[in-house]
């Protein structure tokens, strides 16, 4: 497993002003694995996710201590090219967020800003992303229609396709199914299972059942602390920590 390590989080704490949102997190993330992060709201799940591709930088009062090492390099090193980091660590948000343009342009956006101009290359990447997000068959005849015409579930898969078109190494998903119906949710989960062979997937979810069903390893966060991490089957049947047990059995959260 050792050579599969994609990201090592080493004593990472995150702050918004004086508030400590994450407390000395230690965690490794491997490729070819779906890692689920569960925990009640305000437990730091999203902050953690957004620290991994430096989206927290946009927050005015954000600061951190500790290290996050991606492929042997500290991502918070001042020399890091942040746009290129974000291309390698893709993100899908809780609410489907299509840009106000066509389906094609949404998916081609990432490759375009990375400097790809060739039409055929863009076509290929758009098709690649849509196929891997299981959306190609539904939209291949209307790629140039506004993305806002798609249903919510389709929009979310389009957002997934948009991240995949950049051929990232790590895929971060922040409660991607929170607003979706069960069928769309199942489609996204199917896609993640397929994608696992080529990516490291980190899935933040409020839905413990989803974590149990669609992940290999699960982490439990509470109040900014990492309480427990383990194989999903094990964590859900024999949690080591009482708080984990209380959360997954629905006693709070």
């Amino acid at each position, binding site marked *: 497993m050792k050579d599969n390590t994609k990201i090592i989080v080493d004593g990472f704490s995150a702050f918004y002003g004086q508030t400590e949102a994450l407390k000395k997190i230690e965690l490794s993330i491997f490729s070819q694995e779906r890692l689920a992060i569960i925990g009640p709201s305000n437990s730091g799940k999203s902050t953690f996710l957004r620290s991994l*591709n430096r*989206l927290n930088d*946009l927050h*005015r009062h954000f600061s951190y201590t500790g290290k996050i090492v991606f492929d042997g390099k500290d991502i918070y090193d001042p020399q890091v090219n942040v*746009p*290129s*980091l*974000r*291309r390698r660590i*893709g*993100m899908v*948000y809780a*609410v489907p*967020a299509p*840009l*106000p*343009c066509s389906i094609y342009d949404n998916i081609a*956006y*990432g490759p*375009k*800003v*990375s400097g790809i101009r060739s039409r055929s290359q863009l076509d290929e990447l758009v098709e690649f992303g849509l196929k891997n997000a299981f959306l190609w068959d539904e939209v291949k005849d209307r790629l140039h229609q*506004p993305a*806002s015409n798609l249903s919510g579930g389709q929009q979310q898969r389009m*957002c997934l396709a*948009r*991240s995949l078109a*950049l051929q990232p190494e790590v895929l971060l998903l922040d409660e991607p199914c929170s607003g979706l119906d069960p069928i769309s949710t199942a489609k996204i989960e199917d896609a993640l299972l397929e994608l696992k062979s080529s990516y490291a997937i980190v899935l933040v979810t409020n839905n413990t059942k989803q974590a149990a069903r669609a992940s290999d390893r699960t982490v439990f966060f509470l109040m900014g602390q990492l309480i427990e991490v383990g194989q999903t089957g094990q964590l859900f049947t024999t949690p080591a920590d009482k708080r984990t047990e209380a959360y997954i059995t629905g006693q709070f959260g």
Partner: protein
Amino acid sequence: MKITPATSQRFVVTILWLLTAITILVLLFIIVYILFHGIRNVTWSFLTESPRRMGRQGGVFPMIVGTIAVTGLAVLIAAPVGVLTTIFLTEYTRESKLTSVIRFGADCLAAIPSIIFGLFGFVFFVVVLGMGFSIISGALTLAIMVLPTIIRTSEEAIRAVPAVYREVSYGLGSTRWQMVTRVVLKSALPGIGTGIVLSIGRCVSETAAVMLTAGSALRMPYSPLESSRTLSLHFYILSREGISMQNAYATASVLIITILAINIIAYLLMRRLIAKVR
């Protein structure tokens, strides 16, 4: 006696209707009155000839050219400067003392009477920089005058762009500038366009500021360094000095039709733009 909710509702609706009707009627009255007195004198030769005998006879062709030149140049200067200032204020700086001072300054500038801009333009461009009474002096003065309008309307349009677009763009590996040009400006374009159209209207109808800077020459301008009289100034002089009320109304008709046309064209363009963006 107690007023029932239904009565007060009817009362309010009546008042609102009445006020709306008054506003629209006043506007219609002005337009109809001026067109009624002026439109029959707006002939092809009026539009294409130079004025003779100080404007008693002949047409307004040089004024049309002057108006287009002064307005066009002013907007060409003000629009990029205003939009880039707005981008700096909204996307490149955090909200601070400095930005609120700049914003306050823009608001104050917007409230200054145009004649003051004219005076400034006269002192600075015409005299100090030695540009003389010229189209360029007028355009620069008008550009300063409409800058606050452009900044404020663009700012509102840019602030209305959902924050999530910015996050998505960053998340997909764009730089800030790519995010601004490909996402923010694109979605804010209709709003920015509205501000620019408003400024065009203000430039076309401005009188005091151009009188002091572009001058009031009657001849055809052949370069931006020559003086030229705009349509609204021509109207002012014709009526104020009692030269020819007939031609004054005709000039006003041309002005009104021009402004209506600009607004209609801009409105249609915006609608097409919005349809394309969404």
